[in-house]
């Protein structure tokens, strides 16, 4: 009887000493996989701040995991909850990334379409512009500028396919700016020319 009691007591003590709940490995793997997916979606670029927050959250959970592992009485409930939160947040960040990318893609496509329209309009304006010897020279130069803008827009279209949205948008915007300035220049010249013709009563 005395021996049984002693054994039970020792067993209880040993149980207390090595007491541990199961390490939430599946949840850790799930959270890591979700973060990797988010990263692969481009969150580092398109949802920069939230991606850092996500990584920070995961690191905090891992620290909590080690804290629990350091304890005599391990309790991974808060770790599991944390991991579940990280996984959920990772999905949110991934969605945010996808939305931002879609938003940028739309903006780029819209800008490219606008530039293409401007190029076509400008080409038409070049045909309408006054064609004295002096005008022809300036128009040849403008045609050359339009060709360069067209090349830049083609480059932007290729970049869009590769998924480099931020740089592509800058390129498309710069091309739009230039195409717009040519448009203004041509419109002004034509208006001035038409005004002169009207004044001369032709």
């Amino acid at each position: 009887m005395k021996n049984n009691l002693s054994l039970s007591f020792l067993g209880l003590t040993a149980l207390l000493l090595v007491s541990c709940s199961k390490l939430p490995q599946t949840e850790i793997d799930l959270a890591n996989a979700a973060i990797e997916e988010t990263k692969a979606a481009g969150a580092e670029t398109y949802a920069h701040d939230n991606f850092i927050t996500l990584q920070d959250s995961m690191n905090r959970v891992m620290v909590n995991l080690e804290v629990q592992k350091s304890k005599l009485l391990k309790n991974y409930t808060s770790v599991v909850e944390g991991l579940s939160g990280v996984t959920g947040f990772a999905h949110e960040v991934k969605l945010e990334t996808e939305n931002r990318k879609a938003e940028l893609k739309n903006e780029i496509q819209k800008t490219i379409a606008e530039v293409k329209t401007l190029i076509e309009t400008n080409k038409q304006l070049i045909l309408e512009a006054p064609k004295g010897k002096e005008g022809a020279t300036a128009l040849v130069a403008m045609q050359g500028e339009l060709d360069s803008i067209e090349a830049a827009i083609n480059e932007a279209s290729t970049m869009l396919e590769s998924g480099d949205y931020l740089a592509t948008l800058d390129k498309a915007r710069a091309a739009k700016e230039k195409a717009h300035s040519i448009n203004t220049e041509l419109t002004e010249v034509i208006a001035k020319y038409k005004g002169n013709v009207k004044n001369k009563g032709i």
Partner: protein
Amino acid sequence: MTKFIVYILTFFLVSLLCIIILVLSVEDPPQDEINRAQKRLVEAEKIKSSKYAPELFHSASAYYDSSLNAWRHENERLFLFRNFKKAKEFAALSNLLAEEAITVTRNKISVTEELLGLRISMLENRFHDLIEKYGNIPINNAGRNDLVKGKLLLSEGILAYNQENFLASKIKLDSTELIISLLDEYYVKILGDYFSQYPQWHHWVTQSISNSKRNKTDCIIIDKYARECMLYDNGRMVQKFTIELSVNWIGDKNEQGDKSTPEGLYVIKNKKSGKDTKYYKALLLNYPNEEDKKRFVLNKKKKIIEQDAKIGSLIEIHGNGGKGIDWTDGCIALKDSDIDILFEVCNIGTRVTIVGSLKPLKELFP
């Protein structure tokens, strides 16, 4: 029985005491140190230290990982034998390096922002200067494309700068600078080649002015680069007019249709007005002269021009100028009021000397 209970209680109390002593003697885990390091790393990451201070940031991250690994390793040991000294040291180092990365990044961002701002202004000025300085130098299609490409790149650089994407901005500005330098080189070469004929031009001009002085006659000197037409009387300049040329004005005339103005010693062959000319008034030159003809034959031999090329003719100093741009097919255009003066003063046989420039390249581009 009482003895047994006392024995059990004593054993229990001693065990409990031992456990308490052991637990108290075990070192605290490095949680605080690691949390501090982590906070710094997040701060560093947010301001893009991984790009502005990559070495420091990556070292800080590596120390953070090492700290966590050391903690993990110690956790695998029996709690009585755990030692978190290394984990704490690594965490402290990580914190320190992350802090340094933050400082370096902030400084770099501040300096980069300022430098890029200055660089943008500088490149805008360089573009402006390039056009100001070489705007009237003919440029080929590739050069014109480069010019537009450079302007587009500069715009992209400015857009990136305004979005505080300084690294992307720098890349665009680097490319812009390269294009400006290449264009600059292109123009310097064009002008260098062209002005290699300066001694010849200088000789022609000196000779014409001396003749005018010696023979007490009028003569006309045309400076293509300066876009000036000067009227000399008895070796003394009496009038100066602004002229307009063709877009391809640089270089001597080689063949018909090259839209270039010839260079050399000519005379007025005919004075045209009214129905004789499509311009207001015109002074027809004796282009091609004997020198032009010899050079034309030589150029054909050297295959500089096509075998079926023609030498061209009808180079005139005429009116209808004052447009402010180069527009002729190789002639020299003056304002109608200016051609009136020349028409009045000059006769058939008046010498006309056409040169690239009266000044050497060094004087024009010190």
